[in-house]
């Protein structure tokens, strides 16, 4: 008599081997049926899952961002570094014509939203550039004017002088504005802007007559609607 117990074990193995394709088939049917019946729920859950991933990624990016110095904001994104810098440069150029040596200092502050449509897929950066001026405080502007003023002393030029005249006028420092308007006019007597700023500063300081005379003198030699408009404002006391 051979070992029937051993034979029975072999038979159990054989039975299991025979059942495997059926188990696989039944599982496949079950998965398929579940999928068909709960398709919408599955899609919803999957999309929720990916949204969670996006949120997490966004928070991580923001946290990283907050640790960076505002002046030395740099993104380590292989995809968008170049585009990013180009965009910043364009924005700056549009906002004003300032020549600032320390460019990163002047980069506008930004809110960056990191959007990930799918995991393991391409990353897209949505960069929203906000108004630089609205974000800059007076002290920052003041610092800028100091830096430009210092640079002007080292190397005088019209652009820096007119920038300083404008800057101080905005800060309502009309004395300094008047001084830098005169300085710029010395460097470029044809600059209408310097005439206008000088006249406006005089007027703000209460010397309306002098302001009016300056503008009238300019109009004798030149024709300018802007100057005429300013003269009218000064004369009517609307400035």
């Amino acid at each position, binding site marked *: *008599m051979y070992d029937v117990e051993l034979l029975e074990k*072999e*038979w159990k193995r*054989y039975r299991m081997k025979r059942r495997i394709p059926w188990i696989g088939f039944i599982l496949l049917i079950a998965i398929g049926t579940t999928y068909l019946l709960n398709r919408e729920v599955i899609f919803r859950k999957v999309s929720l899952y990916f949204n969670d991933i996006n949120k997490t990624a966004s928070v991580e990016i923001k946290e990283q961002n907050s640790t960076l110095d505002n002046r030395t904001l740099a993104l380590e994104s292989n995809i968008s570094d170049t585009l990013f810098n180009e965009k910043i440069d364009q924005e700056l150029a549009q906002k004003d014509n300032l020549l600032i040596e320390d460019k990163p200092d002047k980069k506008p502050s930004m809110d960056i939203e990191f959007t990930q449509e799918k995991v393991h897929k391409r990353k897209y950066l949505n960069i929203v550039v906000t108004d630089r001026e609205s974000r800059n405080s007076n002290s920052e502007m003041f610092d800028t004017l100091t830096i430009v003023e210092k640079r002007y002393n080292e190397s005088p030029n019209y652009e820096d002088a007119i920038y300083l005249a404008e800057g101080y006028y905005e800060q309502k420092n009309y004395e300094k504005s008047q001084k830098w308007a005169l300085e710029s006019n010395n460097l470029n007597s044809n600059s209408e802007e310097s005439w206008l700023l000088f006249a406006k500063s005089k007027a703000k300081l209460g010397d309306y007559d002098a302001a009016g005379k300056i503008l009238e003198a300019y109009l004798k030699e030149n024709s300018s609607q802007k100057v005429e408009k300013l003269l009218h404002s000064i004369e009517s006391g609307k400035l």
Partner: protein
Amino acid sequence: MESRYYHAKNVFIDSIEIDDYIALDSSVISYKQLQHSIEKPLKMILVFGRPGTGKSILLNYLYENLKYQKDIHYFATPTTNEEEFFHKIFKVITKKNLPSNTRVNFSTLVDYCRDIQGKREIVVLLDEAQMYSAEMMERIRLLSDSRSIKFIIALHKTDQEDLIAKEHFQSRIWEVVELRNGTLEDTQNYIHKKLLKKNLFEIANSIKSYHIGLIYKFSKGNYRETNKILFTIFEIYEYYDLHNKNKIDENSFSKKIIEMAAIKLGFIHV
């Protein structure tokens, strides 16, 4: 204590005993064909079929049925020694033994056969004829040409044996009886009749068509393979009956045990 399955097991021991012969539709046809061929003035008849198709039992059955009616002799075991074979033939013809140290002169034997032509008709049944050498087969042919000895030769059907049959008997054989594996119905009848013959009614009734189908799948209708499977099945039953009775149901046959037997015999590879 003896298990009831012990008897069932022994029913399927492979044998050529006349008591174990089961008259199935196909085997009855073969038998009648063979019986009819013997009546014809033919010199050689070939019984042809794969191992386990019932050639030996058919020859034995024929011998047992005709031994009192005809001068018929059954050589169940092939004699590879030529001298011994012709001693046996000499005894068949002359009904006398020869001293063991005496050689049979073949040409004298052939002459003697020619002398008795028309007076006697001897039938010799040669089983497992594929074991005989080509030279011996040639001498058998010469003896059959005397027309006083009719040889019924049972051969296994293989490609090689086909060739032997063609080479040595093509022009001599006048009749071929080919045995084939049984059909599903033959297998069912075979199993049931065997069990019923030994009065194992309950066991026979517990084996349903489904079980027969499974057994047939493995045996392909070959009676020797069917015997082996059934023997192993009842051997497993016997073991459980004696050692772990709760693993078997006496009223219904078990597919599991059929498969276990098939694993044991190599029909199923795990």
